[in-house]
């Protein structure tokens, strides 16, 4: 039976309180939908999936990180499924990019669910308008801006959790192999928007998404310059990432 908690519960208490109270007003997310997703999961992830059911299963610390990752992947997947499925939103010339990204995010969700098995958190209910602040499925520019924000967040989020996965080489390497794909996505969407593929300082052209870029200006000992900040992507903590995701989770 699938766990119907979301990753936000049991983490940062203050953040949890906000999110849970908001969710309580709207209603619980559907455990049934999650169960259906598990039932229809591809079998290609057999080796990894077995780990979840092996003797003792995965350590709780790793389960927590993978559920955190799964929550982000749920967010990305629903965002792209909705965007790609919205007639007239994405120009034909750009559609292959977002279809490819959508394909990867769907695969990431399935992969993480397969690894987590019964420990997988339920998919939250998302509001990609963030309470009316954005209109991504009617305004293509806002769809692109949020896409960039989610991908850059994904890069920083996986990076921030790598150390917590060091006890399991298979899980760590799998996470790293997702991490670099998020980096590819971010680069492409940024360039599509006329930005550089890499993050200069903590710059963003969308002030409402500034938290995604906080701390990116670190030069890591190199003389401070645009290139030095671009040359390194910085991690975000789980709490920072959840605070970024929070406005998009009902």
């Amino acid at each position, binding site marked *: 039976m699938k766990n119907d908690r979301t990753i936000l519960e049991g983490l940062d208490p203050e953040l949890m309180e906000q999110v849970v109270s908001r969710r309580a007003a709207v209603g619980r997310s559907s455990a049934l939908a999650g169960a259906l997703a598990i039932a229809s999961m*591809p079998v*290609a*992830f057999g080796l990894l999936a077995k780990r979840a059911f092996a003797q003792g299963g995965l350590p709780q610390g790793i389960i927590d990180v993978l559920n955190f990752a799964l929550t982000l992947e749920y967010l990305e997947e629903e965002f792209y499924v909705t965007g790609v499925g919205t007639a007239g939103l994405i120009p034909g*010339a*750009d559609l*292959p*990019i977002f*279809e*490819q*990204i959508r*394909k*990867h*995010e*769907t*695969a*990431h969700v399935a*992969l993480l669910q397969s690894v987590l098995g019964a420990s997988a958190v339920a998919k939250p209910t998302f509001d990609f308008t963030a309470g009316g602040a954005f209109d991504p499925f009617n305004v293509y520019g806002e769809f692109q801006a949020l896409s960039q924000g989610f991908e850059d967040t994904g*890069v920083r989020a*996986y*990076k921030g959790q*790598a*150390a917590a996965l*060091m006890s399991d*080489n298979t899980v*760590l*390497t*799998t996470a*790293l*192999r*997702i*991490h*670099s*794909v*998020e*980096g*590819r*996505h*971010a*680069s*492409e969407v940024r*360039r*599509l928007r006329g930005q*550089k*593929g*890499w993050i200069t300082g903590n710059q963003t052209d969308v002030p409402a998404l500034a938290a995604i870029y906080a701390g990116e200006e670190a030069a*890591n*000992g*190199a003389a401070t310059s645009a*290139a*030095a900040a*671009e*040359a*390194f*992507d*910085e*991690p975000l903590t789980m709490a920072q990432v959840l605070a970024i995701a929070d406005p998009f989770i009902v």
Partner: protein
Amino acid sequence: MNPKVSEENSELRFLGSLARTTGRRKFVQWAGLTLGVVALGCSDDNGTNPTPGDGEVNLGTGDTGVLNYAYALEQLEAAFYTEVLAGAYFAGAQADEKEILTDIRNHEVIHRDFLKAALGTSAIADLTVTFASVNMADRASVLGAAQTFEDLGVSAYNGAGQLLTDASNLLVAGKIVSVEARHAAAIRDLLVPKSSAVGSFAGDDTVDPTTGLEIPERTPTAVLTAAATYVTTTINASGLPTS
């Protein structure tokens, strides 16, 4: 004997463990292996100290060895883009391509210098490299080689993560690898723009369409074998951890 990269990982892991249990020198005599630039086994059975500039470098052991391995790759990339920027293709390239290649050159130089500083006296000597196989006057040749280096770098770092034991070193590798992935996507997009086709930013040739994972992580041996075309210096990777 030069095993195919695709068959190499498990075989070399096995050979590596055999080497450890039988003693490297004896093992190497028995196996008679020379793998491109990768010398499995070395004249010094401890193999802990990098040897300066005598045509061979020894990456060393443990996290230091893994960081030296990364340093070797960054040396290669920095040298490549430095040469690209001095070449005829770059001189006549469009402004956006010049900006991308200049940025990447700057990033790789910063990565190289960062790792050298982090390694301090343990850093390997400067590698001797050659890009004779790349036509620096030809866009497709230059960008094709750039794509190879960036994709290789990503899979190298993805494979090196599990070899590190210190979390701060893993974080450093993580900070660099996603920028390499950004580079790889940008270079690919110059070659196959706005596409999901093979060769595009995250095409099925570099991201498995079923799992959404970057192509399998590469072992140091696989990476150094692939890089051997461009590196004249012999890189002794025998001291690197294998898991």
